[in-house]
């Protein structure tokens, strides 16, 4: 009998404090969790920057890129484009796409070396922590389990973003110095979008390699699987598609419907590749005169006046490819996330 009112009193007392206190507690919790997340990001970032692996890759990429710019510049000048640039629209974008045949162009280098960068930044993200025994140490601290995965991704992404923006703008500045022509606003935005796209493309490979680092216990295995996958998509898969399309080729005298269906089928096979998606979006961004990424019939092109598309339209025609690339990135992340969240973490 006596206990009842006492308990009520206690409840009331607690109730008076609780909403504000609970809110404060909630804010504190959120802040502390955020702090620890930033702690991991900072540490990962400094680890990456100090690692030999990153230094070597960056120097390879910087050297090749400047090599390609040099050839692009020499091609531009040897073709005798007049310095005013009136004859050639979007001269500036050519810096990124042009090549004289001795060295591939800037975008080819990025599409070739970008995956390697992504793989090298992510292949030992989780499994090396596990092998060192630091994973259980970190997980015993008050942080969410997904914070580790997210922080590793964010840290590598930050690094890639900084690097690509620096590289892209350096090329721009280099071009301005040597040609003496400033880029137009449209060209500038196209270049910015291209840099963002490259970051997205490397992010896909980064996520894929983080996924492998969750799935495989040995860093060597996950690195090999990552590089193997990259080789397969850049070299072997296009070969296989060639073989298949050669076998199925309806020939020059088939009906237009047949040829169209065949071309669509061939492109469909190629669109599985992230590199293909990346290349198509890149070309629509940096070559504004491209009006379609798929096959066009004679009727469709008849009467069209060749001319560059505005930026919005260029993005629009490559929108499906862009979505596909984002989807692939998210998919890798989700698979890695799911398998990591439910995993039991032993000390070693």
């Amino acid at each position: 009998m006596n206990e009842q009112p006492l308990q009520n009193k206690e409840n009331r007392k607690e109730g008076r404090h609780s909403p504000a206190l609970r809110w404060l507690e909630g804010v504190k919790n959120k802040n502390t969790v955020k702090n620890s997340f930033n702690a991991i990001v900072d540490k990962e970032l400094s680890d990456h920057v100090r690692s030999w692996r990153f230094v070597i890759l960056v120097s390879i990429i910087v050297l090749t890129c400047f090599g390609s710019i040099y050839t692009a510049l020499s091609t531009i000048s040897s073709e005798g484009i007049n310095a005013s640039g009136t004859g050639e629209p979007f001269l500036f974008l050519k810096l990124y796409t042009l090549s004289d045949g001795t060295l591939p162009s800037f975008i080819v280098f990025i599409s070739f070396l970008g995956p390697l960068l992504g793989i090298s930044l992510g292949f030992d993200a989780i499994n090396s922590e596990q092998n060192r025994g630091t994973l259980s140490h970190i997980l015993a601290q008050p942080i969410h389990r997904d914070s580790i995965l997210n922080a590793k991704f964010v840290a590598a992404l930050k690094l890639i973003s900084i690097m690509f923006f620096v590289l892209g703008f350096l090329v721009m500045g280099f071009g301005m110095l040597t040609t003496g022509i400033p880029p137009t606003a449209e060209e500038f935005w196209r270049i910015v979008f291209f840099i963002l796209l490259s970051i997205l493309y490397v992010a896909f490979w980064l996520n894929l390699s983080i996924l492998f680092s969750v799935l495989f216990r040995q860093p060597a295995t996950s690195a090999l699987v990552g590089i193997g996958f990259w080789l397969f998509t850049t070299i072997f898969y296009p070969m296989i598609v060639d073989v298949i399309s050669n076998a199925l080729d309806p020939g020059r005298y088939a009906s237009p419907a047949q040829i169209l269906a065949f071309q669509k089928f061939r492109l469909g096979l190629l669109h599985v590749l992230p590199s293909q998606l990346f290349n198509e979006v890149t070309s629509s961004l940096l070559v504004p005169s491209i009006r379609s990424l798929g096959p066009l019939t004679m009727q469709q092109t008849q009467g069209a006046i060749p001319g560059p598309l505005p930026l919005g339209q260029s993005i629009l025609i490559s929108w499906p490819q862009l979505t596909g690339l984002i989807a692939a990135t998210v998919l890798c992340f989700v698979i890695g996330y799911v398998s990591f969240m439910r995993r039991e973490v032993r000390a070693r």
Partner: protein
Amino acid sequence: MAENSIELVELTKKYGTLTAVDHLNLTIGRGEIFGLLGPNGAGKSTTILMMLGLTEPDSGTVRVNGIDPVSRPIEVKRKVGYLPEDVGFYNDLTGLENLLYTARLNSLPENEVKAGTDQLIERVGLSGSMNKKVRTYSRGMRQRLGLAGVLIKNPSVIILDEPTLGIDPTGVREFLNLIAALGKEEGITVLFSSHHLHQVQQVCDRVGIFVKGKLLAEGDIRSLSKKLFKGTPYIIEAGVDTEGVNSKGQPQMLSVGAMKEIVKEVEGIENITLEKNVFSFECTHDASREIARAVLESGAELRLLNRREFGLDEIYYRYFEGGNQNE
């Protein structure tokens, strides 16, 4: 605040057909030093992982400070320090940097940490080597650094999973003293898992014997031995020589059969064994006096008489024997 630091109720974890932890019930009070004793693969580590929310139980509940680590792991981990058997550090960082990283993961305010670190380092005995890289550390130093990382967040519960593995005996003693001091002075609840009986005996208030996922017994060491050796709680050891020497000039030994004949008058002897010239009598009561008298009356010479107390050794082996018989 909850009364008990750790409460496990009907906790079960299965790996395929193997049941690692089998309907475990365990309660550890605030400020207690509890020893979880068991052979390798008994499910000690699995139980600890479940307390930290690092793996999910199949059934049953865990409460640490009254909080469920499955649904609210962050709050549990804020208050619980965990030191695994082989704690991992970043080898390229110094001990201090590793410690500060741990502090940052706990979102501790920087100024507080800086003030407290020196004292903490002093306490775990790493003052001279905090600015060396961890790769140069010995195992004992790594464990000390691990303990510093555990203490930096002012835990109310410390869970130590085989923390003394691979440390030399002096190091072990210092480590254990440190743990005992922590438990006694600061009122921290300590769960100490080990397969080293003597270490557990040295520091723990209470011991749980854990075999094949089941807690076979718990209690302090005296009550455990009472419970266990209900039938024959006393063992009396007697080293006995016969009068003469045999033809080879060695002391002539009595056989078990002959000894049985000698002590047949003494009541309460359940079993006699002979090992290394020493007879062991398992008795229901303290029969040392009667045994001594009977031996002397028989004309044999009594070299040694010893009443053995049951330590953890006996308790441990008795239980493992029991475990084997169950198979």
